[in-house]
């Protein structure tokens, strides 16, 4: 484990060359309520960075600002060097409540991003087919979302995000509506996909274990107004089996350290 909080604040002024997403001085006010206060962050390309913090710390708000879904009050987000003014094809979002279209089949839901881009039917279905297989949903192409379990619905959401071939994937508490056993399996699958797809992942969660298990880098936000409290790189050997990782001393120490840091925010 490496605590790089100090290094990160120095890096904020000098943009690192390998940052896929740069967040500079983001503040967000909701009427009188200050949600985020001058956030400076770099998200390294090809890595999975987690935003972790107590509920109401603004982590989902920050993610949606990066997605271009809500405007920041001040500050700037750059993706691949270009400032964000709204949603864009280089970013794909995975929603906490899946946000699947109930009137469309798994196939059409997964291919929806390509449909909006104007990709022809045969081509987009071929791409969708590939990612449906990759998330383990082969055979369910013609099912409707209400015929699937929560875990399977989120796999559809994930396949939809992969299908548009975005550089940056934004995941908003993707497993919080999935039951515990499915979640573990899902986390393992996600790690496999992170390895396979070589994309930049930004992941919001409130589960410390999930953050430590999945992340290359963990950004801990303080309670409202959200600020960067700490940045941790778990440095866990991911070549080990999932079960070995969960028993690894480094993994357990990191979980404990984060918990000690976050404990003061819990009522």
């Amino acid at each position, binding site marked *: 484990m490496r605590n790089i909080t100090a290094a990160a604040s120095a890096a904020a002024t000098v943009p690192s060359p390998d940052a896929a997403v740069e967040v500079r001085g983001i503040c967000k006010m909701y009427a009188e309520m200050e949600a985020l206060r001058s956030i400076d962050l770099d998200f390294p390309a090809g890595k999975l960075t987690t935003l972790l913090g107590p509920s109401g710390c603004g982590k989902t708000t920050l993610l*949606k600002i990066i*997605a*271009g*879904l809500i405007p920041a009050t001040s500050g700037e987000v750059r993706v691949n060097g270009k400032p964000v003014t*709204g*949603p864009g*094809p280089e*970013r*794909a*979002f995975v*929603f*906490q*409540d899946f*946000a*699947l*279209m*109930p*009137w469309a089949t798994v196939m059409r839901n997964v291919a*929806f*991003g390509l449909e*909006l*881009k104007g990709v022809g039917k045969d081509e987009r279905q071929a791409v969708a087919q590939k990612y449906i297989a990759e998330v383990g949903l082969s055979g369910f192409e013609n099912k*409707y*979302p*209400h015929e699937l379990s929560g875990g399977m619905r989120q796999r559809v959401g994930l396949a*939809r995000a992969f299908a*548009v071939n975005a550089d940056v994937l934004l995941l908003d508490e993707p497993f919080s509506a999935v039951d515990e056993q499915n979640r573990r399996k899902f986390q393992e699958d996600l790690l496999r996909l992170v390895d396979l797809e070589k994309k930049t992942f930004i992941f919001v969660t409130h589960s410390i274990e999930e953050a430590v298990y999945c992340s290359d880098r963990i950004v801990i936000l303080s309670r409202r107004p959200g600020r960067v409290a700490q940045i941790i790189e778990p440095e866990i050997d991911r070549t080990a089996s999932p079960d070995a990782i969960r028993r690894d001393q480094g993994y357990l120490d990191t979980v404990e350290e984060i918990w000690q840091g976050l404990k003061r925010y819990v009522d």
Partner: protein
Amino acid sequence: MTLFGYRVPMMASLLAWCVIWEIVGQAGVSFLVPPLSDVLVAAFSLVQTGSWQAAALTTLNSFLIGMALAIVAGVVIGVLMGRSTLADNLLGIWVNIFVSAPLSALVPVLMILFGMGETTVVVTVFLFAVWIIVLDTRAGIQAVPRSLEEMGRSYGAGGLRLYSKIILLAALPEILAGIRLGMVRGVKGVVIGQLLVSIIGYGELFELYSRNFDMENFWALTIILFAAAMGLSALIENIEKRVEYYAGVR
């Protein structure tokens, strides 16, 4: 329903009421209630007359035009109210007044404005049907989950495509319910409109038969109208059933 341990088929109660009607009619309790069999015979010959066919066409024509206008205007206003607080505040009070107002009272005024012809009837149908469509559409639009809209935006649906691909489809169950209720009200509208104008279509026939105490034909006309209204409503209900699962999983 079960009776003395036997399962009673669904339409059995209707049959029972038909039998009671027939008995009361045969007993000659009142000239207002002729036997059902006579009414059915009258209905059968009525639909073959040129005057009924012409009246039905006129009525259907006014009804369809009025309904089409009501659906278009109702959905557009409903979407506006569902999406914009300003529109909701401006129009909400009027929609709520009109949805419960006794609109029949307005028909004489409409006659002054639109004349004694079909236009008045079309406007009456429109006014009867449109408000409930507005209210249901508005409710449906407001029930569209925020995340579904954000999903559309983040995958590149902006402007009109956001409506055509996400918002209107997501609100479809409520919009259809509004259209079904609007149709039932529209049927009332077309008859009341024609009765008050009283010189065209179904209203003319109603007026003619009731004034001459021609009860067989009067009831035949009523039954045909009820059947048509129920058939229309069942048709929409059938479409609604296909999208019913939405509401639970949206």
